[in-house]
């Protein structure tokens, strides 16, 4: 029986579904981006071959074989409604900013990825904050990944991340420094740079003048 099961796995890997990604799972990979005034979420959703028809039915609601932008938007919003995103315990309203839909054939082959982009407005002051993301979209067939991205703002620092074993629930703590601290640091670095450059210029001038003295003496 074990050999037969192994053979079936190989069959799936080498037959019509030669790409052999996980066939019966809906992979949802989420990336969370932090800024002072916004929290952005990108979700890549890839249905496996054997569950693609169910996802297609949710997308192509009029079953005409194509996904209109209204249908794509509708699905995107339904995914967002299944995501619970909160900051310091308060739920954030996420707005769908875009959704890319692959062809239905790509999804039927298990190779199509739906890419969803959403963001919510936040106002974070200096101090520690906690973001929580709980993904309740199709939990019965889904596998999840969720990661924080390193913020572009150097005044935001992610200090911890935690997840449940399925990565359906995610928590990230991050520290935000006051913007004026950043300005002061920038000013400090700029001043240090100017001082360093002036020092180098003086040293060079001194060396050149010493060289001139030596040259004159030699002459």
């Amino acid at each position: 029986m074990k050999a037969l099961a192994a053979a079936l796995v190989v069959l799936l890997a080498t037959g019509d579904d030669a790409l052999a990604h996980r066939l019966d799972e809906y992979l949802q990979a989420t990336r969370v981006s932090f800024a002072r005034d916004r929290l952005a979420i990108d979700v890549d959703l890839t249905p496996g071959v054997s569950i693609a028809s169910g996802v297609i039915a949710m997308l192509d609601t009029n079953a005409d074989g194509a996904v209109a932008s209204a249908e794509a938007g509708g699905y995107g919003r339904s995914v967002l409604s299944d995501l619970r995103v909160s900051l310091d315990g308060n739920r954030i309203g996420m707005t769908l900013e875009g959704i890319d839909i692959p062809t239905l054939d790509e999804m039927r082959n298990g190779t199509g990825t739906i890419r969803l982009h959403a963001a919510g407005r936040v106002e974070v002051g200096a101090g520690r904050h906690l973001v929580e993301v709980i993904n309740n979209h199709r939990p019965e067939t889904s596998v999840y990944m969720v990661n924080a991205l390193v913020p572009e703002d150097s005044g935001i620092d992610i200090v911890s991340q935690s997840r449940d074993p399925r990565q359906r629930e995610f928590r990230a703590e991050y520290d935000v420094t006051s913007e004026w601290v950043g300005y002061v640091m920038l000013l400090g670095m700029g001043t240090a740079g100017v001082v360093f450059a002036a020092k180098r210029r003086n040293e060079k001038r001194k060396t050149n003048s010493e060289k001139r003295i030596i040259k004159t003496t030699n002459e």
Partner: protein
Amino acid sequence: MPLSTRVLLAVFLASGAIGAPAAFQRPTPSAGTTTGAVAAANAFLATLDAAQRSKATLEFNEKTRVVWSNLPSGMPMQVGATERNGLKLADMTPPQEKAALALIATILSREGYQKAMEIVDADQLLETRSAPTRKPGAPIRFGRGEYYVSILGKPSATEPWMMQFGGHHLAINVTMAGNAHVLAPTHTGAQPASYTVAGKLIRPLGDENDRAFELINALNAEQQKQAILGYEVRNLVLGPGTDGKTIPPEGVRAATFTPAQRTVLLALIREWVGILDDQASAAKMKEIESGLAETYFAWAGATTNGRGAYFRVQGPSVFIEYAPQGAGENNIDHIHTIYREPANDYAARAARR
């Protein structure tokens, strides 16, 4: 096809005894220097006619260099392009292909070239296995002929340019900027992850797997506790299509490692870095070693070799992920990996200078 026939066929194919192509012969390489690479690139271009040359060469810029993927031909890539850059092997004459392979061999190390060709061979096997059951008109194609060679920018000993060699499960992206040769970002993968050629077992990414298991098992209980993530990881986090993104490090810090553990970690990292020519990879390994104390090793999955496990190495100048994709017994017959250099993909550091 009746199920019983398909099962029998699957058992036969599972032996890996048929369908494997002959392994590529590595052309005699020049030294892995920029001038050697320039000469090999120009020699390859000289074998092409005007139409082929126009396809094989592109400008080197932010839009062209990101066109690469793990996916097979016939599918839109993560960046939206529908075809890889360059000219594919199937559209080359034997002398042109020989010159293309000589270029690749010049830029890569002996081991790197062999690894790349073993990945190509695995994909040829996948094509042999899957073609008979492919739906008519299906655009997806695997196999040796579907690997593309492209040159971005003008081959130069001083100005930045790039060589790409890629197809399903392979995206070698080498940017050369003067003496700086940068392998990042590069994707390797394999399906099947093991097969036989003339009775010899081939595992294109076997050493990566084995060294990682050696490392996780060389850690003490406390280190393992820090290294093993408390959650499952089913794919690459920063795979194709995620250029420029960085994630916070997780796992155990190599600052806690013994010299012996550090040696195994460096050997693991070298499996990716060593794809590049020996001189460039030695310089890169030195840089990685200097930041080793700030390098993290993270693990998700079983710790017994022979079972599928995800791992990640992340340091100041290196980012590596290895993710089994869930095929075969124990989920180990389909692998994806990624190699990146934080803030230095596509030789960004040299470009800034």
